[in-house]
């Protein structure tokens, strides 16, 4: 039985959200201007650090909403009949790390908060590093075909 933890509609929104986050996240590094990508028609906004940062915040909120929704749904309904596969667990852990450090970045950027410099560096490196790893996983999945993240307990 194929699981249907989330509907097709939500799955599309989730993919779109992750795409926008990857794009605006990459735009936080000064590369789109250097490599002429922001020169392409319609892509000029990619070199605006403030604009892309705000979009990143907004879609970050959307992602947190979706992940909390999906996780609650899993706990409430599917955990009784399904379990998460190893690749699902790994991906889940990476998502948690990226989201947690993303939230910490948002907190750090508040006027009233000053974190210690080493912590800031660690947060940034974890956020960047695991986001890149998730990107690599997505690329590999794209080439080798989709992995299942949930399997039915009845399969055993």
């Amino acid at each position: 039985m194929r699981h249907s933890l989330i509907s097709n509609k939500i799955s599309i929104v989730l993919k779109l959200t992750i795409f926008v986050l990857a794009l605006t996240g990459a735009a936080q590094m000064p590369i789109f201007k250097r490599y002429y990508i922001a020169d392409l028609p319609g892509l000029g906004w990619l070199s605006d650090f403030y604009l892309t940062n705000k979009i990143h915040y907004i879609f970050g909120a959307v992602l947190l909403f979706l992940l909390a929704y999906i996780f609650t749904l899993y706990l409430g309904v599917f955990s009784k009949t399904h379990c998460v596969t190893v690749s699902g667990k790994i991906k889940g852990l990476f998502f948690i790390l990226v989201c947690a450090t993303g939230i910490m970045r948002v907190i750090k950027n508040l006027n009233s908060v000053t974190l210690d410099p080493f912590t800031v560096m660690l947060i940034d490196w974890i956020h960047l590093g695991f986001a890149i790893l998730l990107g690599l996983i997505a690329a590999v999945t794209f080439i080798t075909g989709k992995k299942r993240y949930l399997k039915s307990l009845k399969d055993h």
Partner: protein
Amino acid sequence: MVKKNISRRSFVKGLAAGTASLAMPFNDHKAEASDTSELVTLLDLSRCIGCGECVEACRTVNGHKFPQPQKPFPEMVPKGRAKVEDWSDRREVDDRLTPYNWLYIESVEVEYKGVVHEINIPRRCLHCQNPPCANLCPWGAAEKQQNGIVRIQPDVCLGGAKCRTVCPWHIPQRQTGVGLYLRLLPGFAGNGVMYKCDRCYDRIDKGELPACIEACPESVQKIGPRREILNEVHNIIHEKGWFAYGLEENGGTNTVYLSPVPFELLDAASRKGPGLPGLNKVDAAMEDEENLAAAVAIAPFAGLVAGMIKAGRFVSSKLGKQEK
């Protein structure tokens, strides 16, 4: 002179109290607070004679932090966009910000209420309270310390110059051919290290004054805990009807300029260009992010509730089916 001595004494006293509290963890919390509170520099522009002693002192005291680039520089891709920024042969330039000159004097002549004023303005990083240069650094190389000092770590910075782009005054300056990028992918990412005033953080740590403050023969600057200095600023504005820059700019900076003439006039008379920050009105750069943070905070809880509703419906519809 008296003023300067008082400020210096109280500053050193505050630091000493802070250090003592570090040594004795059971000390009262008041002393600790004076150590961790942000430090503000106050510049009384009416006193500055433009002698440049501060600029010289900054260069001497911080000389060991200046870049020592290796030549030839690695070829960078693409050539048209990743341009070499080399100041190592122009170290003597002192009339703008460079990696070898973190402070310069802007001298202007303005007429206000029929009187001509000659005003000299020491210019450097303002050490914003919510610094976009540090907040938006994707690499964690720039950050604000508890004492309000905003620093760029020369060993970590890759020189992408994003901090300069997002700084409302475009303060940090780049030197190619130094730093971490040389050991990563020098051709493809990074382009050196960014430099700017670090408020002599090492001297502050030792309880000493920043070099530019100590060297000034006219006591133009003073440094102290934020609340103390702001009190003084408000008193002066009230008493003398002077103007301030840095209280509101970019949401507030830990540098406050006081001047007998409005800053719009000083801004209009100032030179503009790379390495020459103006004195224009600057809105808080991170204000939208501050508001969007609320959305980020609410989102997971909203998702949790939505998930619970959906799960509830799912379970009840299943039960309904079973009952049938």
